[in-house]
């Protein structure tokens, strides 16, 4: 079932005027015949609209910094912000030898009224002293929450002084929740600081071996990154660091030595990918390890990049073996899923990534969108020059990097690069829209009002989004799959992940519990029954 222009018009008409004007730009029906179809993204949500979006702090501390396990992440602000980002995101981390793991801890300066009035700098400094004394971390981050910017605490100065006092790195992130329009601003703020102060500070001068890579924008939710690493290592890749799932400051410092950066979640990490390329010459490749076919394609693209017959051979061996192992299992599950439709509305990359995996199960995505992506995540990076900066994007300072005089080196000739770019998404992301069919709906920053309306119109069989929608949708009798937390399952990436996902989605369809929604007395006529002989009615 596809939506008609008329139905969409009717929906817009139900909105208040100003909102209607705004939302028209964020909603479109895919039409491949048009030369280009622009969508508005990364602009303000209209107040009062029930959005799924969070804030810059969530994007900075919650998404990008939080998973770095060997740093102590201090939240400077009142208690709530730190509390909510404690352990709830499922970014798993293992303790390694010589690498500490502070994942079970939450640190908050717990600002009180007097700190708001007189400033919280002293308290922040005192907390740093206490945690250094107690935990001896190698490095510390400070993330500011809403009131901090307003009261004028200079967290950079506090960080600098603490760094001198303790001789360890202390980084300050001004990611107050009101910056930008969503988590996206926080990704950018985190990227900038990691790039400026962490990446490239390690001592390594050379890659630790052949085929050295970093995995960027992979957060190890439910163990995704471990599954990806499993087959990458088997093929022969050397993983220098992951940003930031199960990531370590110790490793990220040496990110400069890798020969290729893989970019999984483009939205949250593309700034780092670009800047590493400028500063150290490392190209980046857009990959997608969600879904069997996307995983295979990503592996082949990587082999194409390194262009080594040995590596290609090993890649194909692993692909063949894994495929033979998982495909039959997935096919069994697909029988339950076949011919169904899905809505897929997730953060900044999964709205796209999961469509392929759904398709492998015979599920067509009929509505997709992102909570906090930018136009390039929809339309492809070629639109970047056309994206207008506005008041909200301007307040995220960007900074320029220069090629590093000693460490910059080209991984291949410019000609070879150009040649490769024709074959693989090197330094490029073509966006989500390309993959969608004509007639599909693309919605940016989907809100609750539209969720209800679109479900009525399109009646999807499954709705993939987050916790805030989940039970809304389930109450309608429609299975809902959390694609931020995987409903506490996973991994969903790679070959094993695809099997897990197929299992979980079929379970959502096959659960007998759906059969009990209507009580029997709602469908049976009320008879004035008499008890017959033998106790039968």
């Amino acid at each position, binding site marked *: 079932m596809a939506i008609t222009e008329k139905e969409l018009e009717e929906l817009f008409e139900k909105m208040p005027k100003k909102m209607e004007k705004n939302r028209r730009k964020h909603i479109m029906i895919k039409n491949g015949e048009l030369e280009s179809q622009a969508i508005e993204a990364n602009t303000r949500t*209209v107040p009062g609209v029930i959005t799924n979006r969070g804030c810059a702090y969530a994007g900075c501390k919650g998404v990008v910094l939080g998973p770095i396990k060997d740093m102590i992440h201090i939240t400077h602000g009142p208690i709530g912000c730190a509390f909510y980002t404690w352990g709830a995101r499922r970014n798993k981390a293992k303790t390694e030898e010589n690498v500490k793991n502070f994942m079970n801890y939450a640190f908050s300066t*717990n600002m009180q*009224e007097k700190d708001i009035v007189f400033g919280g700098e002293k308290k922040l400094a005192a907390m740093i002293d206490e945690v250094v004394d107690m935990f001896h971390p190698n490095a510390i981050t400070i993330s500011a929450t809403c009131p901090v910017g307003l009261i004028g605490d200079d967290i950079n100065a506090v960080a600098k002084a603490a760094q001198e006092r303790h001789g360890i790195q202390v980084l300050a992130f001004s990611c107050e929740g009101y910056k930008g329009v969503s988590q996206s601003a926080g990704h950018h703020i985190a990227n900038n600081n990691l790039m400026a102060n962490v990446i490239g500070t390690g001592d390594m001068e050379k890659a630790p071996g052949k085929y050295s890579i970093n995995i960027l924008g992979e957060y190890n939710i439910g163990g995704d990154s471990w599954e990806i690493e499993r087959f990458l290592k088997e093929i022969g890749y050397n993983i220098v660091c992951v940003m930031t799932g199960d990531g370590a400051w110790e490793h990220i410092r040496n990110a400069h030595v890798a020969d290729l950066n893989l970019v999984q979640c483009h939205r949250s990490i593309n700034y780092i990918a670009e800047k590493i390329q400028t500063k150290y010459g490392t190209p980046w490749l857009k990959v997608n390890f969600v879904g069997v076919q996307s995983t295979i394609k990503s592996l082949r693209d990587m082999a194409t990049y390194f262009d080594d017959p040995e590596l290609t051979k090993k890649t194909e061996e692993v692909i063949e073996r894994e495929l033979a192992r998982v495909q039959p299992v997935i096919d069994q599950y697909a029988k339950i899923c076949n011919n169904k439709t899905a809505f897929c509305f997730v953060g900044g990359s999964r709205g796209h990534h999961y469509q392929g995996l759904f398709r492998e199960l015979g599920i067509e995505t009929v509505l997709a969108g992102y909570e906090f992506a930018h136009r390039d995540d929809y339309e492809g990076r070629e639109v970047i020059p056309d994206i207008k900066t506005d008041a909200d994007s301007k307040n995220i300072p960007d900074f320029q990097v220069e090629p590093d005089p000693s460490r910059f080196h080209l991984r291949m000739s410019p000609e070879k690069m150009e040649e490769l770019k024709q074959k693989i998404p090197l330094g490029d992301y073509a966006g989500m829209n390309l993959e969608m069919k004509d007639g599909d709906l693309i919605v940016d920053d989907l809100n609750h009002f539209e969720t209800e309306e679109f479900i009525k119109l399109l009646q999807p069989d499954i709705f993939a989004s987050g916790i805030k929608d989940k039970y809304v949708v389930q109450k309608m009798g429609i299975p809902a799959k959390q694609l931020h937390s995987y409903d506490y399952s996973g991994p969903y990436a790679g070959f094993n992940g695809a099997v897990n996902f197929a299992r979980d989605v079929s379970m959502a369809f096959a659960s007998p519990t759906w059969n009990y929604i209507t009580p029997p007395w709602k469908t049976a006529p009320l008879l004035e029954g008499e008890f017959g002989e033998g106790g039968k009615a």
Partner: protein
Amino acid sequence: MLDYTPKEIKKRSSGTVINPAKTCQPIGAMYAALGIHGCLPHSHGSQGCCSFHRMHLTRHFRDPIMASTSSFTEGASVFGGGANLKTAIKNVFTLYNPDVMAIHTTCLSETIGDDIPATIRQAEIPEGKIVFHANTPSYQGSHITGFSNMTKAMVTYFSEKTTEQPKEQTNLIPGFVNPGDMRELKRIFEAMGLTYIMFPDTSGVVDSPMTGKFEMYPKGGVTIDQLKDTGNSKITLSLGRFSSEAAAEALKKKCKVPFISLKTPIGIKATDDMLMALRGSFAAEVPYELEEERGQLVDVMTDAHFHFHNKKVAIFGDPDIVAGLTEFVLSLGMKPIHILTGTPGGALGSKMYSFEDEINDMLQSAGITANVKADSDLLELHQWIKNQPVDLLIGNTYGKYIAKAEDIPFVRVGFPILDRAIHSYMPIVGYRGAMRLLEMIDNALLDRADRDAADEDFELVM
């Protein structure tokens, strides 16, 4: 698990928190507002707060938690959020059509100093619709304070005294408890034959049934008419002084309704106290139905006493819940030796009867010395436990890290519980609730004994 927590306790004087045992005001306010029928809570601040609060409440209740936000950007935080709020009010009524919109503030709007009442006065509010607010700055108190502030706002905005003579009805303020507890309280009141107005009442809202249809405003919740009528009640029963007493006091001030402040009725003694208070105020006899339940509770307490007598317990969580739990485990003959809350301990800013005093009084009469602290964190609780081990830990989900690190049986009670389902439907208040708590405690201890028993000591009958 929590590998770096040192056993040695060094005084931390910075007032900062490591592994919190509290969260911020707005989430409590949002929860309280959901206890009004047809109400949409609104978070006046940037989107993140609202998103976090909805996420955590949704995880705890596994039910839709709807709330809107003023979506502040940098501009709003410089020039004030009045314009955002006006737009939000307009859009909320057009798009989501609630009967009531309950605004709470956030750190951001409080720091800016937005004047909410002034904005409400200037806003376009459709005929017959209601907008009210509570100030909930998170740099004071905790989520319990936020719950208390929103509950109090229900009184200051709505309660009216319109009858000469008070009506034969009770205002029942249940405090920050689950809808399962609220249902149980209502059942007890009905068994006593009493008329009551419970507020807030989240039963039927955050434990709504599966019907195949999503209702943005489910059947439950106290109505605005009922809230108005609270001014005519004969008496107010405030359960849990940290979450309920401020509203009871406001009612007394505004409408001269006297109040009785009691513990959250967790356990036998607190439930006895509640029934005695009702009996005394309304000359209503306690029916056999409840007396029988009480008798059953005492029966099982006695039957199984050797399972838990003298066992050492650590308890943490919200002050009203912790006070009730402490009293209950004492009545079981257990030894609560570490008792902690993250919420600051003075009763709503007054220094009258602090959390610590209340707990220490109970412990003293039982002859137990213990670590007791308000305004503290789970790092400190863990350190206490490292120095003086316990047989059982009781608290919210976040206790699971400590329970695993120290290999202690763990009973989940309180808010939030994110890793177990169904709990919010099941009461811990009243005699039945006490029986359920006792079963959880008993099973946790016995499961552990089974797990640890050598084959030759493995018992069939226990």
